[in-house]
């Protein structure tokens, strides 16, 4: 076993190259507001510009095939890139985008050659930003119950309906979504998977007011939106995987979103910040970290974060070594969500009410601890609720059933 990517001399040279490149290409004055809703448009554009430069270099989606705009690099190289950008507190991609990781993966598996050529290079090179549109008022945990329709009309589909908890601040170039293509067909056989340009007439975006946007991605999404489709005309070319095949196409990105992708980056900024704060701030004449009760809770936070790190690493390895997965994806998602919630409670114990304010004088770590209190509870539900992850785990393990449900295809 080897828990660390092992680097050859050549790979170490690659790390130096990445490090040097990032030093030169990293936009100045990148800031990390605790709540991503406070990210300014200017900051967003800096991240987009970095994304485009990474994309041109083949480092945005490093392991994606070169012929579709990816870097065609090895897993170890992609880990090097992620580790190096992690030093700046950024992720790959350095902004909210579900194109390369999720939608793009579905297109790679299920799209026609023409569709791959059309959609993927722009995604992989960071030229476009993409949102996913899945939940609806009547389709949350029961995603297959979506009601928004795409009805064939000549060479187009006419789209009507409403999607919620969508995207981020500052709009998107593409929206990929599940729509009903045959209202009379049985469940799961009635859907189509579409890649829709965001600027088509009839699309309205309306921000939602939420406690925080939550979300599982490393890059905060900022605002969540309701997206309305009012007789939006979408070319039939934008249907991926064929009519009424949408559920099948969705299994790929749902699998990835349910934690199958995993994570290789090693630093946990929240834990680092918390420990640093507790070492450097005094309570009753000694550092908070020396207070016996706080100390117990700090260890609890550490233990939780270590297990979450190891599950993420295991899934990252399984995915990239093509080791067949069963329950590991939803387990990773379930554990991380509930673990974050437990950690938030520990931090509330450690810091007291200081964890609940971003007041510059009385809050902790510039408001990062307060934002974590909010995201820990709101984050339990996006991308399949914690309970849904357990339902999927039970099917994959085969609890109470002889036939084990298979994981979605990732490649």
């Amino acid at each position: 076993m080897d828990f660390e990517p092992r680097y050859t001399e050549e790979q170490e040279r690659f790390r130096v190259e990445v490090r040097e490149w990032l030093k030169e290409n990293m936009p100045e004055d990148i800031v990390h507001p605790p709540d991503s809703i406070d990210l300014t448009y200017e900051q967003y554009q800096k991240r987009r510009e970095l994304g485009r430069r990474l994309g041109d270099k083949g480092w945005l989606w490093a392991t994606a095939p070169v012929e579709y705009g990816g870097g065609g690099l090895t897993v170890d190289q992609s880990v090097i890139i992620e580790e190096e950008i992690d030093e700046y507190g950024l992720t790959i991609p350095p902004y909210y985008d579900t194109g390369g990781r999720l939608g793009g993966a579905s297109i790679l598996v299920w799209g026609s050659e023409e569709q791959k050529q059309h959609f993927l290079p722009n995604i992989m090179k960071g030229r476009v930003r993409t949102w996913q549109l899945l939940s609806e008022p009547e389709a949350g945990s029961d995603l297959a119950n979506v009601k928004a329709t795409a009805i064939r009309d000549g060479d187009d589909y006419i789209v009507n309906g409403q999607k919620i908890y969508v995207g981020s601040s500052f709009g998107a170039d593409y929206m990929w979504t599940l729509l009903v293509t045959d209202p009379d067909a049985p469940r799961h056989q009635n859907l189509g998977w579409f890649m829709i340009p965001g600027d088509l007439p009839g699309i309205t975006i309306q921000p939602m007011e939420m406690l925080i946007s939550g979300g599982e991605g490393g890059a905060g999404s900022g605002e969540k939106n309701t997206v309305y489709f009012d007789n939006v005309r979408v070319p039939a070319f934008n249907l991926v995987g064929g009519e009424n095949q949408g559920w099948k196409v969705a299994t790929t990105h749902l699998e990835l979103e349910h934690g199958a992708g995993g994570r290789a980056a090693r630093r946990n900024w929240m834990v680092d910040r918390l420990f640093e704060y507790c070492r450097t701030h005094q309570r009753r004449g000694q550092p908070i970290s020396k207070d016996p009760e706080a100390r117990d809770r700090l260890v609890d936070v550490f233990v939780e974060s270590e297990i979450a790190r190891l599950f993420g690493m295991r899934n990252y390895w399984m995915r990239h070594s093509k080791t067949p997965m069963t329950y590991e994806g939803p387990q990773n998602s379930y554990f991380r969500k509930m673990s974050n919630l437990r950690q938030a409670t520990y931090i509330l114990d450690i810091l007291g009410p200081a964890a609940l304010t971003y007041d510059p004088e009385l809050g902790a770590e510039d408001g990062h601890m307060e934002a974590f209190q909010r995201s820990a509870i709101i984050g339990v539900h996006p991308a399949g609720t914690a309970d849904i992850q357990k339902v999927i785990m039970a099917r994959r393990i085969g609890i109470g059933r002889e036939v084990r449900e298979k994981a979605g295809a990732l490649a």
Partner: protein
Amino acid sequence: MDLALTPDQEMLKSVVHRFVQQEYPKETLLEIAASGSPTPSEPWSKLAETGWLGIAVPLEYGGEGGTLTDAGVLFEELGRGPVPGPHITSGILGVFTVLAGGTEEQKREWLPLLARGERTLVPAVTEADYGWEQEDVRLAAHRNGAGFRLNGSKVYVFDANSASHLLCAVRSEGGDQVGLVTVPASAPGVEVRPLPGFSWNMAEVKFNDVAVGESDLLGLSFDSGWDALQWAIDRTIPVLGAFQVGGCQAVYEMSVDYSRTRVQFGTPVGRFQRVQDHIINLVNHLDSARWTTYEALWKLDTDRPAQESVHLAKAVGSEAYHQACNYAHEVHAGLGGMTEYGLTLHTTASRTLYHYLGNPRFHRLRLADALGL
């Protein structure tokens, strides 16, 4: 990064797996548990013949010279039994303590015998004020001519009832140092009393004017005994962790099987989400233990700083085995409580291993120190 076992380790795993199925079936394990004598000659001598008790003994001392991860693979499969010792206590903790603290002559005397299972050497550390700190060791070695005399007792000693020899932590006379002496369990004045109840092979060892020779003092000095023991404990913890992982894996598979076959209200009970919750909690504990354990083994094998990982592995692994058994009982209800079903073998082992080498709370406190909090 490669989280797979090597082909050799995969082969070891399947060989040990078959061995445990063949030599330690449930009926045998239940018989051993009922007899109160954990080392019936037949399966134990077969286990010794495999050479696995020497997995951690360097080649030059007649062992297999395996890595800690190799040992983890072996003990994970033994943990599925759970196969009774004294395998980890002697073959891992005893061996590593001798390796770290013994003179060259002592190593040459002990290690080949331990590797072949011809002797077993089980550390006896804890006393009435149960604890794993140096200050908890009170039993004194009183000077007596060319040797020492022991008077007192060690309690809650895991595997003492099956050991041929004990490696006893003793305080130097009037001193602040703790050394380790080897004592035959059959020596005059040594009385090993198995502790009855919900415990797995725990015993009290009484020393009634037991004579110990100068040459039986590990390293021939009190200087380094405690440090040698600590070094050995750090390396033993993740191997013990792997044993606990094997136990978790066994009760997990038991529970999934049962969820498919037990029908109530006209449906397999595993169709009920309450029952599913128990198994999901169980598998989360299992995997938490598995990956913290194997990362610690890997760090030790590759000489990386491993102190945090060792404490993490013990805290997580012991909690996991304990909880995994609890959840398995929830799935099985009344049946799980019946001795003949076999689940209680694990439940019993999980409680004793929870405390062995320090309980989760103890290791969490040490983890805080290791983290520089």
